[in-house]
């Protein structure tokens, strides 16, 4: 799905990876209620103007499918989109290795947007905690 269909390519000067994920996010949405193997987690707050919700569907100890929703600035939306994409096929141990620093590197997130990377780390850690609690 192409969310933003523009003839202007990134006039705002966002880092390319952020712009790509923001304009072309995949796996937006959520799984149908009761889908087996799904863990959900949310991080952030409305007051802080960024909320990220991740859903990871595990199958045989690996992420088989993903969904996300995000409310926030383009960087936080891109973080959500990147995480779910990256998660596909990964084991919980592999997922646990991802930190804010990796997100900042992967998406070229600037210092003043470091909180967007933290948001991603928080959401993923929460999902893993939920997975651990379930299994």
């Amino acid at each position, binding site marked *: 799905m192409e*969310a*933003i269909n*523009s*003839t*202007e*390519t*990134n*006039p*705002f000067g*966002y880092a390319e990876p952020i712009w790509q994920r*923001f*304009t072309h*996010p995949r796996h*937006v949405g959520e799984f149908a209620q009761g889908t087996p193997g799904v863990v959900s987690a*949310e991080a952030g707050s*409305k007051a802080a*103007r*960024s*909320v*990220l*919700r991740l859903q990871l569907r595990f199958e045989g100890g690996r992420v088989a499918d993903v969904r996300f*929703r*995000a*409310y*926030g*600035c*383009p960087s936080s*939306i891109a973080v959500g989109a990147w995480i779910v994409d990256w998660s596909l096929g990964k084991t919980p141990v592999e997922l646990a290795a991802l930190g804010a620093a990796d997100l900042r590197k992967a998406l070229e997130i600037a210092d003043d947007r470091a909180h967007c990377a933290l948001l991603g780390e928080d959401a993923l850690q929460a999902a893993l905690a939920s997975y651990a609690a379930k299994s």
Partner: protein
Amino acid sequence: MIYLDYAATTPLDPRVLQAMLPHLTADGSFANPASTHGPGYKARAAVERARAQVAALLGAEAPEIVWTSGATESNNLAIKGALEFNGGHNGRSPHIVTSRTEHKCVLDTCRHLETQGVRVTFLRPGTDGVVSPEQVLEALTPETVLVSLMWVNNEIGVVQEVQRLAPLLRERGVLFHVDAVQAAGKLPIDLRVIPIDLLSVSAHKIYGPKGAGALYVRKKPRARLAPQMHGGGHEWGMRSGTLATHQIAGMGAAFEIAAAQLQDDARRVAGLRDLLWQRLQALPRILRNGDPQRAAPHVLNVSFEGVEGEALRASLPDLAVSSGSACSSATQEPSYVLRALGRDDELANASLRFSLGRGTTAEQIEQAAESVIKQVQWLRELSPLWKP
């Protein structure tokens, strides 16, 4: 790219460029208008012609127009100049009344004067964006030297009641400065009948060049100012510095054109603004900022529930619109104007100011509305918080 940011700045009218070009070539009239030789006198004549053109749009006399580098300077000069000349004679702190929804250059000037011991009352407008004359009168004290209010707000387009207020201030002997940057060329202004003392205008909001402005300084009764730019004593000692002939000639042409087209421009642009608002009704939970009954023709400011402001703007790369004024949007803080109207941070941030102008077409409006609707819907859909 659809440009809907005419309140931030406008392109030159091609006729304005034609008026500027004769001063931009070596065989043209390029001399310093202060020079006392033939070419200098010719440049001076162009400056004086433009002065008359600017005065005409405002119902002023030519010698009441002082050239500046833009309305930021005009506002600084009006407020600081009036305070410096008129303030603090009785040993008490002089007092200014203004509002929280003024342009940054008025607010920051007033805040600077506060650090110099001036007392400033920043009135809060109603949720409709209007500052009532009664509010202003109540705020006056015996020390009040100046009231500074804008005619039309640049973010929400609300037309303030300066016409009703002006005679009330004149009666009370209080100087009245009006920032008319967004009013000139959009609403009729006749300073022969409205007793405003000082009035700021800018060229680049009405198809003239950026970097050219003027301050109207009333002669009868005479408004007195201390100059803020010292030098050779140009502009009757009120503003020194070499006059930029091409800029001034362009500003004159822009004002003359604005005077000729004012009614037609206003009618057409207001029609397009209404069309845009009508189309946006396809979206639930949107709010129009500023009283629609007191709206200048060219501005429509809308808050969109459930979307984050920066993402909204970033999702519309083909649309040149702004959130708040050009000056404040760089900092990406939520608009202080919308905050002053009582909008919360989130809504203040999730707002777009559409400002329309001579180049705006119905087709552009339809396209813009379509994009905005689509993107707001998309961002709402993306949000984990949105509940339709």
